[in-house]
């Protein structure tokens, strides 16, 4: 026989009360939401700041974005060979810090202007990729069944299509241009995003709190909007960063192959002109190297940011 039970005592909220500082009086749910979002963002930023790689990547990216913005506002006169009277194929000097090409146009001007186009194409193509990929991934992952099978086979098809061949075909139909490049990248890169998003959705879908929402009476839209999307967003974000990097690289490759706007000065375009202008044999390293280096730096910066974000996002999910 056990001894009689203890009368329950103690304030239920005394222990386990880990309130750090005083909280402002919050009455409106909107203020609560804003406060929470602010708190979430500051924590992410604080964590991000700790990552040296992340900060370095961010710095480089900010630099190039600044260059691109500068390019938007600075004059394009320097690019027109009819208005320029610089020496041809001149090595770097004070007046032309990166030298000139075979038309006498300053390479530096081309690189600066090129940043605008490369970043823009990268961005637009990525938005396309991520939108298509996320949509397909969410629908396939959430609905499951026939939808999932159908969409995934479609995705497999997308994975298999050789994007280079597609680019050439499209270029011959629409004609080589920036739009061609954007379309090609956007339409061929989404499958990997779709797979990633789908697997994340599959995992979130099974979580107990989703079941609770269903028990509360929540419908599919509520589930997707309130639970699936917020938990899938971090993955999409981390993936997005890498997608941009790949898009820029792809743009370079396609431009280099001559599928881009022949009059554009994207970095890939500059490399193409340099190649066609026999820069290497003529020893004009200042013409062919800088755009390549810029591409590497930008892609690197995105990759570093992506890595840093990934580290932050995943362990937090795990520890929570």
């Amino acid at each position: 026989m056990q001894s009689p039970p203890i009368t329950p005592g103690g304030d239920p909220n005394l222990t386990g009360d880990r309130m750090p500082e005083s909280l402002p009086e919050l009455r409106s749910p909107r203020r609560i939401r804003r406060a929470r979002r602010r708190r979430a963002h500051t924590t992410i930023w604080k964590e991000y700041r700790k990552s040296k790689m992340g900060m370095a990547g961010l710095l480089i990216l900010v630099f190039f974005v600044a260059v691109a913005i500068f390019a938007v506002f600075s004059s394009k006169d320097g690019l027109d060979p009819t208005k320029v009277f610089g020496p041809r194929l001149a090595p770097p000097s004070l007046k032309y810090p990166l030298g000139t090409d075979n038309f006498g146009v300053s390479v530096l001007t081309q690189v600066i202007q090129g940043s605008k186009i490369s970043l823009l194409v990268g961005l637009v193509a990525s938005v396309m990729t991520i939108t298509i990929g996320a949509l397909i991934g969410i629908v396939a992952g959430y609905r499951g069944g026939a939808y999932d099978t159908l969409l995934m086979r479609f995705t497999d098809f997308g994975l298999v299509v050789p994007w280079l061949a597609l680019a050439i075909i499209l270029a011959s139909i629409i004609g080589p241009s920036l739009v061609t490049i954007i379309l090609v990248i956007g339409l061929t890169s989404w499958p990997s995003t779709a797979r990633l998003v789908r697997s994340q959705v599959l995992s979130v879908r099974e979580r107990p709190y989703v079941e609770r929402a269903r028990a509360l009476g929540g419908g599919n839209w509520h589930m997707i909007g309130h639970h699936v999307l917020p938990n899938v967003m971090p993955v999409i974000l981390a993936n997005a960063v890498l997608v941009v990097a790949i898009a820029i690289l792809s743009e370079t490759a396609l431009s280099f192959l001559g599928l881009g706007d022949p009059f554009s000065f994207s970095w890939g375009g500059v490399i193409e002109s340099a190649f066609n202008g026999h820069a290497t044999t003529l020893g004009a390293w200042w013409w062919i190297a800088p755009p390549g280096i810029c591409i590497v730096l930008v892609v690197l910066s995105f990759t570093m940011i992506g890595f840093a974000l990934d580290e932050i996002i995943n362990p937090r999910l795990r520890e929570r």
Partner: protein
Amino acid sequence: MSAIDVPAPETGLPKGAPILEVEDLHVTFRGRVGLIAGLRGQKGTRSRAVDGVDLLVRKGEVLAIAGESGCGKTTTARAIMGLQEVESGTIKYEGKPLPRNLKPYLRKVQMVFQDPTGTLNPRQTIYEIIAEGLRIHGIDRGPDGEPEEQLVARALSRAGLRPPDRFFLRYPHELSGGQRQRVVIGGALVLEPEVIVADEPVSNLDASVRGEILQLLMKLREDLDLTIVIVTHDLGLAWTVADRVAVMYLGRIVEIGPAEEVLLRPLHPYTKALLDVVPEAGGLDRPILTGEPPDPTKIPPGCRFHPRCPVVVSGKAAELGIEAACKGEDLALEEIQPGHFSACHASRQLGAEAAAAAIAAAGAAVAPEPVAEDGRTDDAASDEPPDGT
């Protein structure tokens, strides 16, 4: 008291009237088949998780559904909540079968889950978690015009988290296990339901905290006129809080009746066996059923408990002349005593008194030798397949 403790409004049904009815519920899970096998017409193994369950829950009562894992109790609870696809059978609320759109029904019948940590979205604040129910049902004002914050505060307060606004901005990981479960309960209460279905509400909590949560549930039953269905594997819990107890085995209810009757004078050998293994019952030298909890894909013929039943195994069934029935004749619940039902040939044959005695005797007859003397006496050397859940 402040406006937060406004008592719940009176509801329609009188106390004791049937509020929830389950009729002949069947839930089957099919195993997977490979593509080729499927094309050949092979079907997956059928796991009859719930195999014919009838239940009547009365308003204001606390009904405990007890059993081991794999017996179908959680599946039954989830079916009641509409979270589980049902193969056949009807579920009725206040006498009317459930409509296709479960949303209005779910306002009245809410669930409390087993794992308070997993059940709360780690990215939502406590406020949002509680308010979720209100938002799903489009409730932005209370019956007396109260704003959303007040409804949330009231729910938290009723669940014992006071003062409620201190919890609004916090996240689940900042709370302890007991507090999280209170949040889950609060989230269910905010809709002012009539019935709460609790699936193992305290088994994931620390032992010393359990009593408090159970106390809360009982208080809510009092104050808010709630009906509570608790799914548990712990008969001690049933003893503490339940008015009636239903014992499930392999997808069926094998005994149901008033808690004191079922737990003190069981009329089914399985119930008796479960009671015997509760540690406080005293000593490991008491009868322990052999083998693992059985497999819902291979339900034995006749009484589904007969392969492990002490009455059969000890030979008592043969003595009583019911062995053939036990092995060959499947049977449903029968009222052996007023309000006390059992699905057992022995009970059916002998009536309450004699059956209880026979069951107890059979149990003692299969009791193994005291541990010190013998070696292995229970038989895990069985080829029982892994337990299904």
